[in-house]
């Protein structure tokens, strides 16, 4: 094994908390997934293997404004220490504002709700890296993917 690999494995394994439970707080940036294009999220592990959190987002695409908020509950059915499988479930609220590009129309605003069921895996140890597949259910139903990257303590 090269020296680089040895160093990398040592960094991952040699934390003082290596044998402790994972960090309970996490703040992260979500890309795609529940946040739409992107969002900021936070979650807190209430008890071992159960956490609650939320992700919110705001972005503008082609002049249209999107705001979303998605609280969720997480269970960790598999894994231990810092690498665990997760399942998340929660509602999604989305507000979409279409400003009018023409003088003859006033534009339109719509607020709707849905739900997201996510399954994935996360690494949590100082940093948080989470990848998940998702079934998004609202007026329509579609599969989707998301990635979260952030910090935990």
């Amino acid at each position, binding site marked *: 094994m090269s020296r680089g690999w040895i160093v990398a494995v040592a960094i991952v394994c040699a934390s003082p908390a290596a044998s402790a439970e994972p960090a309970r707080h996490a703040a992260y940036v979500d890309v795609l997934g529940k946040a739409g*294009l992107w969002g900021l999220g936070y979650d807190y592990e209430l008890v071992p293997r159960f956490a609650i959190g939320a992700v919110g987002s705001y972005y503008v695409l082609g002049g249209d404004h999107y705001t*979303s908020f998605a609280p969720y509950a997480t269970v960790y059915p598999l894994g231990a220490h810092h690498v665990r499988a997760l399942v998340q479930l929660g509602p999604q609220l*989305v*507000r979409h504002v*279409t*400003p009018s*590009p023409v003088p003859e129309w006033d534009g339109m605003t719509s607020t709707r709700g849905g739900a997201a069921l996510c399954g994935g895996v996360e690494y949590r140890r100082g940093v948080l890296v989470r990848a998940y597949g998702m079934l998004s259910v*609202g007026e329509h139903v579609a599969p989707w993917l998301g990635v979260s990257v952030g910090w935990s303590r």
Partner: protein
Amino acid sequence: MRALALLVMAGCGLDMTADQPWVSIDGIGAPLAPDGAPPPTAKPAPAGPVRIVTYNVQYGPDLASAAAALAGDPALASADVILVQEIEAYPGEGATRASTLARLLGMGYVYVPARVKADGTHGLAILSAFPIANVEKMDLPDSRRHELQHRIAISADISLGERSLHVIDVHLDTKLEPSERIAQLHPAAIDAPETTLIGGDFNTSWIAWANGVPIIETSGASDQGPIVDSYMAGLAFDTPTAGCGPTEHMFGVEQRLDAIYTRGLGVAFGGVVRVGPSDHWPLWVDVTVP
């Protein structure tokens, strides 16, 4: 007014710097030369409603199946006018696909290319059992994003004896946000005559796009169909197909991408007929022309 419109539209992703006039197709030459022919036997002027169908044929490679689907359904078989989108023409095929479809259905037609594709063209067509007159083309505003394609609208007067029905056939870009979609449609709709039918593939998806990356948001808040309906209603158009349900299917996802809007006409919603080889289904209404 145009200066105000340009200022308002500056924030969207469309290039609104060019004029979008209606241009007679008579002066359009190669490589985008139009094609057309009158109906082999024009129907007598109708005493009752005129049946209008809009149908995206997805390039039209299997016209025999498309024609069989249209002719085999009782509602579609009595179509008087068919607004066709996404139809193509290639020199090696001997005739434009619009010509072939019209021949199979016993209708007249006009085919107007939007852009060159390989050694052929891609565009819109209007098929009619009645004479087609005053055909014009409009180049719609292009997106500044390079992955998108040039779009057009075509208009024509369908001669119904002493009456006339003005129709506009449109096919808007796929990966547009709602405000961009309104801006692209606007030049074709804003100066339409008081009595007009506008139909076609408005590509009113519920999927948002970020530089070509789909953003899946299923709540319905991002549905573009109700937004375009709202815009057209603001121009005093009726929205008879607003509740028609999906008109397109792909990868197991169904969406309402097609629509028909009318102004100054009596209109009765017909339906979406789930037939044909295309990823779109034909959508029809009956209109009463004053």
